[in-house]
């Protein structure tokens, strides 16, 4: 393991290149995909690896995302390790198949490059695509930067395929901000990744002639409910598996991941909760504010499904007020999905900080440090005054 640590190579890569590199090292048996901005590059680079003979993957350039996910499900159910990638409306077009992948317990790993959903049509980042799919039964891991995208994809293979889990996983990066931004990424050696992910053994492959089977047959009042309960229990069991795989990966890479990441939360009186690339910007603002003597901190959610309720309660156990940031709106009138779920989790907590929701960055609207500073100052006011929390605020929008 020490050798693996030393043998890591630091390379400048975009988020999409980091994802494509992870795919090359994982070397799935089948990739079926359809281009969509800003994901296109991942699969395009991968198709070059196929043409160059760097991987033995069967590559199918299908006619739509609906078919991409269908082909991926077909391949994975047949016993192959299968992947695809998408963004935005591509993910939305897969909707029917997302639920089917999860319901069939097919362990697909899919990079998703976050982009706003139409309408109006937009190609830039927000989380409306994957947040819209939050209840499709997929594990969801959000990456702050290219390094995390690479690391999360490699871990996701092991998590998805774990016999206690057998659930599909989407691993996200923020469109353009990370997908097209270049930064240093530490890469493991190809063989180290191959050994880590191991051989794929779907427990119920097709063409096992001693045990012929049907995948996805009709169940009605008799068994459908039991299937869905099994699915929920698998999601519950995935929590322990995600932790074990993270520890395994840390031994290999020196990089340790949890459900949430606490940044300067020690001694913090107020905090923001964020996910994705905004965590990087917010850390910068926390550093500035800490230098000015402010008692603030940051909690980044890495795993959104299964939702890290207890972990968030623990992370927010000592603070008086929290601003919860959503890069999508649920249009429920109850705030964004991160807000609604964090607030619900805090209902069980012994410490219940005042909460305020910040909807921000929709359609790629830039989230500048000054806006995050503004949010911190408003949350500080909440922490130090008699003001009541619970409101929904919009950060960086025209009034």
């Amino acid at each position: 393991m020490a050798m693996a640590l030393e043998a890591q190579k630091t390379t400048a890569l975009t988020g999409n290149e980091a994802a494509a590199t992870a795919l090359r090292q994982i070397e799935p048996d089948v990739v079926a995909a359809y281009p969509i901005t800003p994901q296109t590059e991942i699969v395009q680079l991968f198709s070059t690896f196929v043409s160059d003979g760097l991987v033995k993957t069967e590559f199918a350039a299908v006619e739509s995302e609906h078919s991409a996910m269908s082909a991926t499900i077909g391949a994975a159910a047949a016993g192959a390790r299968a992947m695809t990638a998408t963004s935005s409306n591509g993910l939305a077009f897969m909707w029917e198949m997302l639920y089917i992948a999860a319901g069939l317990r097919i362990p697909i790993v899919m990079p998703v490059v976050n982009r706003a959903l139409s309408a109006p049509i937009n190609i830039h980042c927000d989380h409306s695509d994957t947040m819209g799919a939050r209840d499709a039964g997929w594990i969801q891991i959000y990456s702050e930067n290219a390094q995390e995208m690479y690391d999360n994809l490699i871990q996701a293979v092991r998590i998805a395929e774990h016999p206690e889990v057998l659930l599909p996983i989407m691993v996200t990066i923020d469109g353009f901000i990370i997908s097209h931004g270049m930064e240093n990424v530490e890469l493991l050696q190809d063989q180290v990744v191959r050994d880590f992910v191991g051989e794929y053994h779907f427990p119920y492959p097709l063409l096992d002639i001693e045990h012929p089977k049907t995948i996805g047959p009709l169940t009605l009042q008799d068994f459908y409910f039991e299937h869905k309960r099994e699915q929920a229990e698998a999601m519950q069991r995935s929590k322990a598996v995600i932790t074990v795989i993270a520890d395994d990966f840390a031994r290999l890479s020196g990089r340790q991941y949890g459900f949430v990441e606490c940044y300067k939360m020690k001694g913090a009186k107020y905090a923001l909760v964020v996910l994705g690339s905004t965590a990087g910007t917010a850390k910068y603002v926390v550093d500035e504010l800490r230098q000015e003597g402010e008692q603030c901190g940051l909690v980044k959610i890495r795993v959104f499904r299964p939702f890290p309720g207890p972990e968030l309660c623990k992370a927010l156990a000592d603070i008086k007020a929290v601003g919860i940031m959503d890069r999508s709106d649920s249009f429920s009138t109850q705030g964004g999905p991160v807000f609604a779920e964090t607030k619900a989790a805090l209902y069980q907590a012994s410490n219940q900080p005042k909460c305020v929701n910040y909807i921000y960055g929709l359609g790629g609207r830039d989230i500048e440090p000054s806006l995050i500073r503004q949010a911190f100052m408003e949350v500080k006011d909440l922490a130090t005054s008699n003001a009541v929390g619970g409101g929904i605020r919009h950060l960086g929008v025209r009034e």
Partner: protein
Amino acid sequence: MKQVTGRPTALTDKPFHYCPGCTHGIIHRLVAEALEEDNLRGKAIGIASVGCSVFAYDYFNCDMQQAAHGRAPAVATGIKRAWPDSFVFTYQGDGDLASIGIAETIHAASRGENITVIFVNNSVYGMTGGQMAPTTLVGQKSTTTPSGRDATLHGYPLPVCEMLQVLPGVAYLARVSVSSPAKIRAAKRAIKRAFAAQLRGIGFGLVEILSSCPTNWHLDPVKALEFVDNQMAAQFPLQVFRDFE
């Protein structure tokens, strides 16, 4: 001085964003001239698709609706059924029409919807950077087929007009090109015939226009037009597949 030509009133003043040598600009103009000559501006509703021509709504000087990828003929169906006296056209590329939207295309044609489809075929996914499309020629290089399309791995080019010509709901169907002045004039005649089919209420009209993509083909504009004439037209012959009296 007598003015003999000008910018069609059915085009806005906005300069096209298309790459140098791309034929979208010519095709936009032909559609706009046809709209103007048939006095359709007051009742025309266009459907913009997804791809290089996504911004068609900025250029056509009439009401436009932007449709999700591939859904233009279905959206057009809804608009035409709601406003039967309107003139409804879609403007779609091969990535939109022949790929993700082939089902909508076939079923709108099969139902004989009284709409006009302008289908611009440049044999690649242009907007996303030149990946293989269903229309990519065997042997043609694209970013997802860097060694050329291999029929055993990637299948064969999809002949949209040849597929649609068997459907009785189709009133007018032609494949044209805009690679020379004579062919541009023939393309205009085809567009006007397709418009006439809708105006007479006799069914679905589609004009496939072979187009060049110098950027993604890595050819200069002249060589790109030669590729249209020599390579594309061999795979996708220029002809009128269905006409009416």
